[in-house]
């Protein structure tokens, strides 16, 4: 495993240039009021989300392997104010686009309120602790190993570069899910018990998730309090189960929850497991097209009911 091959990120220079030109054009022409994108941050190689409202700011937009954030989250938490100002431009990777498509299906966003700048992406870093790290098969985010949308489609603008063919990477999530599925229930319970015990209930996973847009989360409610809110094993387990359940059939796999988790709980593993099950049960994959109904708010009369007496 020591032969970590470097991955080809040469397209990112051209992508950066194209994003800048396009963002400047749509901002100066008044097509959009703002462009949500990435700009270089203070540390060498790092990137942070920015909202560019004029051509000068748009000239600072970048795209690198450190552009890990899913910017869709900025649209959901502020969705009510979007159309007041006019169209918003947003820089999206293929995985972020899946989240946007899901949000459109749930009537949280309107396609006509957005100007999508799609980014051909050959992968981003798994961790931005060392943002200047070279993108290799070891530092790439696990989600990128199983990515099928290196080249996004259906955007208003996509830089005309071709993503270099990436080597077939080992699917870390599918391997880990298979490993856990092979264990006994007791072994799985002790695995998750250990993972959930780490949780400090900071709710970073909820905050960063584009789909966690409920104005009042079930887990914040008391009277009745369904989920214990203290950071203790019981409430933690309940929170993570409820979270996975509420995201089932919606989560598009941007893995932001896992990235922001300060305690390194493998949160996306639960989401990927649910996605896998829904694919098997109802042949549903989220984020492929704008659908009014997901797998858990629709039904077919022929659905499997072998588990029901």
């Amino acid at each position, binding site marked *: 495993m020591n032969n970590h091959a470097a991955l080809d990120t040469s397209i990112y220079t051209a992508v950066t240039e194209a994003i800048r030109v396009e963002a400047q054009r749509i901002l100066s022409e008044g097509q959009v009021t703002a462009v949500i994108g990435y700009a270089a941050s203070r540390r060498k190689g790092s990137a942070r989300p920015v909202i560019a409202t004029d051509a000068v700011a748009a000239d600072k937009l970048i795209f690198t392997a450190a552009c890990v954030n899913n910017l869709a989250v900025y649209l959901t938490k502020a969705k009510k104010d979007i159309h007041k100002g006019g169209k918003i431009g947003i820089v999206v990777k293929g995985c972020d686009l899946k989240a946007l498509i899901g949000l459109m299906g749930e009537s949280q966003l309107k396609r006509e309120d957005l100007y999508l700048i799609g980014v051909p992406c050959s992968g981003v870093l798994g961790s931005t602790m060392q943002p200047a790290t070279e993108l290799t098969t070891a530092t790439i985010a696990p989600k990128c190993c199983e990515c099928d949308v290196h080249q996004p489609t259906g955007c208003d603008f996509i830089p005309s570069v071709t993503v270099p063919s990436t080597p077939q990477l080992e699917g870390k999530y599918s391997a880990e899910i298979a490993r856990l599925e092979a264990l006994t229930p007791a072994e799985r319970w002790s695995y998750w018990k250990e993972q959930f015990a780490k949780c400090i209930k900071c709710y970073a996973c909820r905050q960063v998730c584009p789909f966690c847009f409920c104005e009042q989360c079930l887990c914040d409610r008391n009277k009745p309090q369904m989920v214990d809110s203290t950071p203790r094993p019981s409430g933690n387990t*309940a929170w993570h189960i409820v979270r996975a359940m509420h995201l089932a059939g919606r989560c598009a796999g941007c893995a932001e929850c896992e990235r922001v988790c300060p305690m390194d709980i493998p949160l996306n593993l639960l989401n990927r497991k649910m996605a896998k099950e829904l694919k098997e049960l109802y042949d549903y994959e989220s984020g492929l097209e704008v659908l009014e109904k997901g797998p858990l708010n629709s039904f077919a009369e022929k659905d499997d009911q072998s588990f029901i*007496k």
Partner: protein
Amino acid sequence: MDNRTQQDFEPKIIAFVCTWCTYAGADLAGTSRMQYPSNVRVLKFPCTGRIDPVFILKAFQQGADGVLVSGCHPGDCHYIAGNFHARRRFAAFRKLLEFIGVDLNRLQFSWVSAAEGGKWVEVVTDLTEKVRTMGPMVEFKELALEEQWSGAIDTPELKEAYNAI
């Protein structure tokens, strides 16, 4: 586990039922004077579609050894499609619980109509006996008793730091 506790164990079964079919079915079992284990505690809901998976979690956390969810047969829902939605939701929830490591033998789903008093007795008896042989559900109860902070507080590093004060 010795014989005494094995015999003394009376499972607690929580049944989430829909008011239109299974509740009426259980009522029929009662008025027909059928016998079934008194281990089951029935909670009435308007529809299986109203039964949130979090209720099941809560039941386990608060000491249930088994959970039964029961409603109208497909096509018989008073609200047209509530049980169809519930069917998908619980199919997904089962998979999630299984992945977390919960023994699915403790969680039973069934369709019991208002005319099926006999089936209600059968479902309740089967689940009660199954859970009785499995013993108490300890996983969630243990969690609830555990007072664990996000890290161990007796690591060598912390001890050293403490001694250095």
